[in-house]
């Protein structure tokens, strides 16, 4: 598969850049998607720590792709293949660390994280804590996809 323009440009840690730019969540809750995600990414290792968030996500009735602890292969194979076909929203219930990786990769295709919510009350997002999130196409970039 040939790299798209967007795949090439984003090489340097989009998560932190996005946070620095102050991108604001546009959703109030995990179950109210602007567009239905093409799939849900789930870290099975989270277990009971993420049950509440998982219940919200599962209610969406869409395909689930799961892994245990290491999102690498899912990210490099499944999501790359999915986003290579089109800019489809993806939701997730993962650790904060996996979100960092997914967001970094998503940027290469022109998607941004439009929603993130830590699932441990009182704790900020951390690499080892569960978080619910949604990646969606970056609507503010008209050329996304058109030159892929």
């Amino acid at each position, binding site marked *: 598969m040939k790299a798209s323009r967007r795949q090439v440009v984003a090489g340097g840690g989009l998560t932190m850049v996005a946070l620095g730019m102050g991108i604001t969540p546009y959703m109030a809750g995990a179950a109210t998607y602007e567009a239905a995600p093409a799939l849900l990414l789930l870290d099975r290792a989270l277990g009971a720590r993420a049950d509440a968030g998982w219940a919200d996500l599962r209610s969406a009735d869409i395909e689930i792709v799961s892994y245990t602890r290491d999102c*690498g292969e899912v990210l490099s194979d499944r999501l790359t293949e999915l986003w290579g076909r089109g800019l489809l929203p993806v939701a997730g219930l993962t650790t904060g660390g996996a979100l960092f990786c997914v967001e970094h990769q998503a940027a290469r295709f022109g998607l941004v994280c439009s929603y993130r919510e830590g699932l441990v009350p009182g704790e900020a997002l*951390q690499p080892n804590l569960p978080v619910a999130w949604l990646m969606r196409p970056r609507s503010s970039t008209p050329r996304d996809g058109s030159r892929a």
Partner: protein
Amino acid sequence: MTLPPGIDQAAFERAIAGFRRAVGEEWVFTSQEDVALYRDAYSPMWNEPDERVASAAVAPADVGEVQAVMRVANDTGLPVYPISTGKNLGYGGSAPTLSGSAVLDLKRMDRVLDIDEANASVLVEPGVSYFDLYRAVRDAGAKLWIDCPDPGWGSPIGNALDRGGGYTRAQFRNHFDAHCGMEVVLPDGALLRTGMGAMPEAKTWQQYKAGFGPWIDGLFSQSNFGVVTKMGFWMMPEPEAALIGRVYADRYEDLPALVRIVTHLENAGIVNGMPGFGSPLLQRRIPADPRSSAPNDSSAVDRSVHDAFYDGDKAARALIAERVRATGSSCWSALVKFYGPERMVRLQWELAKERFAEIPGVRFDEPEIYGFPLSDEELEQVHKPTFGIPSLAIFNFGIRTDLRPEPMVGHQAFSPVIPRTGEAIFEVNKVFAGIFRDEGLPLPPFNLPGCVWERALMMITIFPTTHDEALNTKYRRAIQRLIAEAARRGWGEYRTPVAYYDAVMATYSFGDNALRRFHETIKDALDPNGIVSPGRYGIWPRRNRAGDRA
């Protein structure tokens, strides 16, 4: 937008126009939104005036386009900063050393050009990631292992050129040493092949490293003398088995013997995987332990024991001995790995145990034996890079502890190379502890080194990077002091974040900075206009050497 010194807006626009002619309009990036994506997410100078930022990016598709970009850079004077996949997090990411440079993004050059299973080698382009290579090897059905660092999304070429390391056998986990042959676009646009590749129609480019005459490959690692567009690597044939052996020693004073024996076993080829050291009493885990690769969180360790490891005097040893007896946790542990036929690795483990028996009271666990391919259950549990499998699991681990409670967004590493002795480990810990105290930083747990390289140890200390300027300044000051104090004792860094390139280069000062001047002589000869990565690893072209490095 920041422009480099000596480049005005008109020159920049000429360069951009030239880049567009060279690679096509859509592969030149100038919008703020696009260029911001090349910021170093882990920058220790985030949002400060000295944060290194690019002015643009250009992404060629092939060698011819790289050569065309170099011609434009020479014509206009706009420097370019080559990156492969741009994942060098902790050491600079994809941001240029000299602000205002254009990033030369090689991600589109992403072909695995050759997989030679019989001779266990590959030839790749810079945009190939470890995941890409792993997939290509698997798809080809080749029984070869890749050796990768913990985050597997980086590039074998990029990591090797930065002299990164991995986790399997010594000749593979030293990623630069594992390469065999390279292709380089020189700053003037000329194309060079090294080793046997210098011979047209060479049949052994990935089989014999040196070629004929001076072996120059090292000049293109940690440097700015050209743009590497192809590299060959030797791969590790998949072994029949891997054996993981665990060794425990109870006395504080056992560390020198433990290190000495491990070193001998590795140098003798009996231990042929990456060894490591830990401390069960201190809850210091061994890096790349297949059972648990999580970083340490020693916040629960009793402070008096913690301090006793630094003191190491008679009273401290007595306290440690008492805690060892009371808890049943050993003072030290070592992990040794063996790859090969099962009969052979079992014999190697027995031979190793005979040597470790020199240490009074030494104990061993039953060894773990792995066969391949690993089962799904094993894959979910083990440290994958130990078995040649790329992973991103390292990103699940935070280093925010009771000792470092502030929010962090990334990390930076202080990574000196020290002698491979227990005595050096004790001394380094004491010296660095003094600096931490002087700088008002919490004293980290007693540090144990990594064994990535043969014959030396690497004492990595991780510092957070944050979005708080005052905190970042405090950590940068501490690292600058550590660099200087370490150098006074003969410990030099193997690699450093961009912010410290000049400070580290200044410590390699033997003979009135003869090495730096040699680098500069080569730089000026190969790149008289100073258009490739000015300042990378402390090598500045003539035009930037008069303090013009903004």
